[in-house]
């Protein structure tokens, strides 16, 4: 039986009583309620109040082209009536007030993202995550939008610039522009944010330890190319009164944080040392927070964000930090609907935010499955017996999914593709090679393992150990040219151990963790990000160099000479898009 996406939503209304997963219930309830109202407004009761602009026409920006089914659906007013909020209409304006619902669906490039507040609707009036703490009008939510998986996409930024003529606080000069000394009213001064989703991160040089003490870095740094002018600026650059290195990075997803923050063991495999303890909680820190883990706790990160990104005059007090962290720890986001594959939260798979709510953190998924919620789509019919998959006994999978006979041809094709992509991710060995802080920690170089060996944390695909490693996305020659970014020349001092695979002289767009530790081995090392909600928050990698999910796969295919076929790339892309 073939069904349209909308008909699919309506069909869910009749299954409420038997829905097992709570998120499926609430999502279905939302869909049913709105289907019943037949209203096209996004400002109905129970919906976020949208301010700061009229509802924009659907746009997919630089992300993957929307599949035809979704494009069709978006032209149908009943689609929005069905409860899926247009991603940009769901833009949360700083200080707008109102309630962030306990659950919402936001449309994105391949379907819809589900966002769940585990503690129920959040009253945002005066809430420090949604209220400016400093003087530039920004709040945490400015860059961590629910509709964008608690990050922010280039498509949203482009739209917001047009809507507000650049006056939204997200474009604040301090880091929402290429450099604060540029004329702020013109889009070209914000090109890195508008075209690549990159915020300026300015870090002291030489690096300072967490206690503020000086550090003698193992390398010198020289600006080779400075398209923004900020690194050579007398006011903001390396030779300013307060020397700073400006790098440009994507904001990370502020959701599913129980997985990001959970300590995994007592040791850092990267350094061979015992992980530090958070004196406030007595728990071990996993060093997986932020691109470079310059702050190890959510409280410290929020404090820094208030002082820098929001330009607060003083540190937030403990009560404010507690409210921010409490909010961050209870919000979950994951893809919940795919325009081709259908509902991801019920039926044969139980994905979406509920899988993350139900899951246990700090589970090593590399040998038992990173995303067990997708197991229901795995069939021997879809996967076959690829020659590289000698590890999986034929009897592992059933031949067909329950209810497969009711899938449309497009659904079956997509679900089979996701199954193959997941199997490649978990099982297909590649020669992982020349990755500092991976191949150098005792595993050997190369190390023959599948993707899941690095992306080993169940439910997020992060690295369960501190995830910083040099995958080559910022260091030449493996990084893309990226002429819009600064280029630095780092030279390791004679007494220092050089970068293990690039030697004493390294050219990089972003030294990554080395700007925190001062160590050559850490040049270009970037903490892994979670795989969740990817379809809602393009572009990807810390420097936004992958414009689409497919670009992520293509980068790795080239980086590690994986030999993927076009089908493999499509399968991996589809797999990543449903997480």
């Amino acid at each position, binding site marked *: 039986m073939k069904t349209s996406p909308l008909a699919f939503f309506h069909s869910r209304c009749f299954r409420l009583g038997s829905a097992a997963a709570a998120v499926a219930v609430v999502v279905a309830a939302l869909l049913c309620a709105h289907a019943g109202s037949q209203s096209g407004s996004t400002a109905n009761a129970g919906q976020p109040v949208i301010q700061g602009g009229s509802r924009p026409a659907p746009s997919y920006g630089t992300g993957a082209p929307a599949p035809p089914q979704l494009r069709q659906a978006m032209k149908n007013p009943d689609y929005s009536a069905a409860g899926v909020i247009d991603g940009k209409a769901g833009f949360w304006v700083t200080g707008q007030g109102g309630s962030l619902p306990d659950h919402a669906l936001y449309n994105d490039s391949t379907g819809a993202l589900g966002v769940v507040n585990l503690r129920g609707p959040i009253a945002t009036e005066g809430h420090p995550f949604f209220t400016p703490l400093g003087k530039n009008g920004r709040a945490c939510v400015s860059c961590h939008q629910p509709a964008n998986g608690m990050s922010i996409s280039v498509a949203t930024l482009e739209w917001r610039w047009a809507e507000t003529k650049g006056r939204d606080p997200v474009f604040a000069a301090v880091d929402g522009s290429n450099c604060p000394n540029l004329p702020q009213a013109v889009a070209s001064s914000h090109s890195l944010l508008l075209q690549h989703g990159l915020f300026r991160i300015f870090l002291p040089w030489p690096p300072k330890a967490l206690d503020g003490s000086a550090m003698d870095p193992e390398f010198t740094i020289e600006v080779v190319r400075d398209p923004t002018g900020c690194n050579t600026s007398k006011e903001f650059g390396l030779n300013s009164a307060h020397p700073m290195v400006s790098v440009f990075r994507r904001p990370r997803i502020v959701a599913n944080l129980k997985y990001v923050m959970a*300590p*995994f*063991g*007592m*040791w850092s*495999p990267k350094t*061979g*040392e*015992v992980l*530090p*303890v958070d004196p406030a909680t007595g728990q071990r820190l996993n060093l997986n927070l932020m691109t470079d883990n310059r702050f190890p706790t959510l409280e410290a990160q929020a404090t820094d964000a208030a002082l820098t990104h929001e330009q607060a005059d003083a540190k937030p007090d403990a009560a404010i930090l507690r409210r921010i962290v409490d909010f961050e720890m209870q919000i979950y986001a994951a893809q919940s609907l795919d325009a081709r594959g259908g509902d991801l939260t019920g039926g044969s798979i139980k994905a979406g935010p509920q899988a993350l709510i139900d899951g246990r953190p*700090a589970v*090593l998924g*590399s*040998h038992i499955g990173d995303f067990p919620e997708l197991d229901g789509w795995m069939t021997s019919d879809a996967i076959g017996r690829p020659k590289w998959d*000698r*590890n999986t*006994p034929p009897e592992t999978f059933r031949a067909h999914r329950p209810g497969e006979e009711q899938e449309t041809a497009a659904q079956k094709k997509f679900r089979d593709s996701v199954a193959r992509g997941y199997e490649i991710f978990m099982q297909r060995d590649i*020669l992982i*090679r*020349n990755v500092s802080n991976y*191949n*150098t*920690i*005792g*595993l*050997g*170089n*190369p*190390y*023959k393992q599948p993707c899941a060996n690095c992306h080993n944390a169940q439910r997020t695909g992060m690295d*369960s*150990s501190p995830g910083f490693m040099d995958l080559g996305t910022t260091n030449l020659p493996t990084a893309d040219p990226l002429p819009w970014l600064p280029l630095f020349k780092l030279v390791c001092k004679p007494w220092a*151990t*050089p970068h*293990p*695979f690039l*030697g004493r002289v390294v050219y990089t767009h972003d030294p990554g963790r080395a700007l925190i530790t001062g160590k050559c081995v850490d040049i270009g090392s970037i903490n892994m990000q979670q795989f969740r909600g990817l379809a809602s928050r393009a572009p990807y990698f810390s420097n936004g160099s992958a414009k689409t999910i497919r670009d992520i796969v293509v980068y790795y295919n080239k980086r590690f000479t994986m030999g993927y076929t076009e089908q493999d790339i499509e399968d991996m892309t589809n797999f990543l898009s449903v997480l």
Partner: protein
Amino acid sequence: MRRIVLLGSALLGGLLPLHAQSAPLAQTARKPARPANARSFVACPIFRNTERQCWLAKYKGTMYYIDPGTGYRPQLGFRVLVEGTVSPDPPVCGGVQLNPLHVSVLPERAPQCQTILPAGGFDSPPVRNNYGYVKHPGDPPLPRYTPGTVLGPPPPPYADTHYTVYFTFDRAFLPEGTTEVIVEEAAALIKAGHPRHVDVKGYSSNSLLEDGKTLVEKKGMAEARARLVARALNELGVPSEVISIDWTAQPLPGDGVNDADGRKAVIDIEF
């Protein structure tokens, strides 16, 4: 405050640590001649791309199998120091086996070491990674290291004991899931038994190669090893006040047979 028993030359005006002074005696007790089956050489590692992967090294026309399994594996781009004894067991992956086998990745970059061989019909034995992950069906089950498992206190009675943590050449690094377990066990015993003394002593050792050259460990390795282990004990909950640190000022000179045994830190626990 950590009670550091500084016996190194910096504090004592150039005098050797006490046990360093006795080191020559230990050397004379070593075997004077290298057995014919002892191996100690430096070579580029060779990666054979078998299904499970395997590591080899060629020296004087002979291929040796040098995958240590756990611990610190070879890296293309770096030479390896191979120390061991030729085993009568059949070759593995096209390489003569060594037992014992000690492999150290030398710190200097060697970009010329980049050889990857095709599988060539060879298979390789099951190799556990540091989590004990059994990768292929039919592989024997191996004990799984469970990260985050906090060892419970061992039951009394408590007796004097020592733990030895071995390191590879020129490195003070505890590879994941292997030697770190030893430190955890020591910490659990110390916290449970409240010993009178905990001494951590670091050692280093050169390597006497088959070609007659001596590979010298970096200065300060013994101290770095002692400090690394002492810091780990402290961060695992052992009060710094009960830990004494000591190290040899000079590396053992190397005899071509037992050299790998001299790269260690020893945790002496006295009740």
